[in-house]
């Protein structure tokens, strides 16, 4: 099919066909699914334990049995009970990890689509023996697609009436709703829902604490989320939700769009309300464990540092007035070194220095 005609098909919104025609157990498609796991797992040559254990040789192995990896008690218990990974129990696990192993440490919501699960298995098996996924399945599916579609002439493709160049198509309401998840300080965009501090603690301990710490103090170099009050004028300010952020809406918006890191969009809106309430609690902004944050009372909460932001005023800085800089005999005496990188020696391969954001 020519490129041009393909574009014509897109305009007619038959573009979803190619994906659904892919054959059932497709390792190449599974490679795409594995992207959801990659932030925590590796597989193939040189695979190492990361946030999760490496997945080489996983099928046929006892659950929770890789030496040197710190599994949850729950995962080790299932291994001790004789759980050996096979197609069937893996599918059950990966559909909803927390349903299959209630207290697993794996912060992953699950794979909803049957097709994804099957393709993933094909991929994991292909990678595990070091083999490469074969592209054949994908290719043959494409040929079929070409065969089943009747030819369309360019002149028969309708041109939409919107806009100036009449490009693109009108978005569906549910499409806009699926992607438009931003929230503003005035509350615009907040979904219906609510959550209690004490419920937020449970969600937090399960999904967030391993990086951000039990009290939001941040483990290692993972970001700190709480504390730092009155440190903004210190030598080393600690910028947290409580000490620095201007708006609570940003907490809800950001946690919903990007956290937990590596498994974004896996929590529901009530969980996010509960987490936001718990983050207020960790920052001493609410003190009652029974406090419920909801769409209704959201904008009544103000963060302490809101007033301390101003617009960009760099143009008023004194040095901006200098238009013709000095060219000769600008400084008296010879140069003296007052600071040198070697004194700190934090250039790569050396020890830790000051963090960037």
């Amino acid at each position, binding site marked *: 099919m020519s490129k041009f005609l393909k*574009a014509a098909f*897109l305009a007619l919104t038959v573009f979803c066909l190619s994906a659904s025609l892919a054959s059932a157990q497709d390792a190449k498609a599974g490679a795409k699914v594995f992207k959801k796991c990659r*932030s925590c797992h590796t597989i193939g040559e040189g695979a190492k334990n990361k946030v999760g254990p490496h997945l080489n040789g996983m099928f046929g192995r006892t659950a929770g049995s890789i030496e040197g990896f710190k599994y949850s008690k729950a995962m080790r218990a299932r291994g001790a009970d004789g759980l050996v990974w096979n197609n069937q129990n893996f599918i059950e696990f990966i559909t909803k990890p927390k349903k299959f192993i209630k207290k697993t440490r794996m912060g992953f919501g699950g794979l909803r689509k049957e097709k994804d699960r099957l393709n993933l298995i094909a991929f994991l098996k292909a990678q595990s023996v070091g083999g490469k996924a074969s592209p054949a399945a994908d290719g043959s599916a494409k040929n079929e697609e070409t065969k089943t579609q009747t030819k369309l002439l360019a002149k028969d493709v309708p041109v939409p009436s*919107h*806009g*100036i160049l009449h*490009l*693109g*198509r009108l*978005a569906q309401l549910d*499409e*806009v709703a699926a*992607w438009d998840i*931003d929230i*503003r*300080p005035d509350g615009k965009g907040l979904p219906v829902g609510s959550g209690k501090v004490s419920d937020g603690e449970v969600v937090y301990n399960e999904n967030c604490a391993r*990086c951000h710490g039990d009290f939001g103090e941040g483990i290692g*170099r*993972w970001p700190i989320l709480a504390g730092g009050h009155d440190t903004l*004028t210190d030598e080393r*300010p600690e910028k947290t*939700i409580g000490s*620095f*952020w*201007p708006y609570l809406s*940003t907490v809800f*918006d950001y946690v919903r*769009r990007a956290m937990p*890191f*590596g498994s*974004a969009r896996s929590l529901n809106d009530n969980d996010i309300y509960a987490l936001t309430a718990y983050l207020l609690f960790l920052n001493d902004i609410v003190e009652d464990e029974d406090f419920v944050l909801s769409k209704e009372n959201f904008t009544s909460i103000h963060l302490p540092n809101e007033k301390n932001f*101003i617009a*960009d005023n760099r143009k008023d800085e*004194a*040095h*901006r007035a200098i*238009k013709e*800089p*000095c060219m*000769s*005999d*600008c*400084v008296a005496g*010879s*140069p*003296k070194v*007052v*600071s*040198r*990188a*070697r004194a*700190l*020696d934090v*250039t*790569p391969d050396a*020890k830790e*220095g*000051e*963090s*960037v954001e």
Partner: protein
Amino acid sequence: MSDNKNTTPASNDVKLGRRQLLAGGLATGGIAAATTIAAAASDPLITEVQDWNRYLGDGVDASPYGKPSEYEKDTVRRNVAWLTADTQSSINFTPLHKLDGIITPNGVCFERHHGGVAVIDPADHRLMINGLVDNPIVFTMDDIMRFPRENRTYFLECAANSGMEWRGSQLNGCQFTHGMVHNCMYTGVPLKYILAEAGIKTAGKWLLAEGADASAMSRSIPLDKALDDCMVAFKMNGESLRPEQGYPLRLVVPGWEGNMWIKWLRRLEIGDKAWYQREETSKYTDLMENGIARSFTWAMDVKSVITNPSPQAPITHGKGRTVLTGLAWSGHGKISRVDVTIDGGRNWKTARLDGPSFSRSLHRFYYDFDWDGSELFVQSRAIDDQGNVQPTKDQLRAARGVSSIYHNNGIQTWQINPDGSAENVEIS
């Protein structure tokens, strides 16, 4: 140190006439005198036939997509492991000291991700426009390719470039102190053409741009800027965007901080107010000494750095003829002048700008001089066509303190030692 301003001829503007170029002219011209010194023994690389001169090399099918020479292994991006907890929310740096001219090759353009590199089949990519518009619209990549295109060369600098240097010299090499910048020619569509397909309502004042990656990166941009010179780009330096630069589609926000150049661009929303996203509140706000923070500090100010010599690129040839070179840029316009000092700011000479000069693009400067082998303190100072002069680090600290992380465009000093090695220092 010795008084370099007297021993160094002002030979930045070398003018070779026909007479000097002819035989004999060089001897009196003195420029190439050092190269006529007789070598102690003859060079076997010349006197013996080399393998590459006898045997056939690879054919045209050896490398369908070409790679740099195997002798350029050091021309690579590098990261600084201790800066961040993992590599998915992290940065690496452009090897500025290995490059010349003004264009950054695609494979070494620095990377900054907040959720790793999203890998998206262009057939699966969608761009949505919604909010205060007449019609919310969805585009496929095929649709995007049907808009009129433009080609523009712009630098992209992370607002945190040089951010580790606020409290004093920290990293030894311009790759690490200044390498969060790159410069590419983008092919794409002016944003205003794309937005016109949805029709912006008169109440629209702001644009939210959002990425399709695991951080769903999002920033508020004033609509005036969006309609002025922003672009939606699909090519960089002639080829498709690299995955790590937002393939298949990224926003180009000329002269403004790199974080706003949303990669894997999937949504543009028109609104009447800013959204105050995480990257414009918790991050990319500049904390002043008095505890007040500036927000929406978008433009990247006038800046320059000497890339050679520098700590990763010492002088290895002894005294005599030396090429000093570097980069200058400004988010406000073109670079009109770069001054260079080799005596730590006591005296300055205007460097030679060479190569194309575009607004909001990197500019290349050279200062050619005879090094007398003594200790030097080299600095560069850029001036843009809006009259902005690059400040010293101390001037910036006086205005802001040391906690602001972002927008450090202060003058950089390299100490050149008598052995040719170089170090990141600050001087009084």
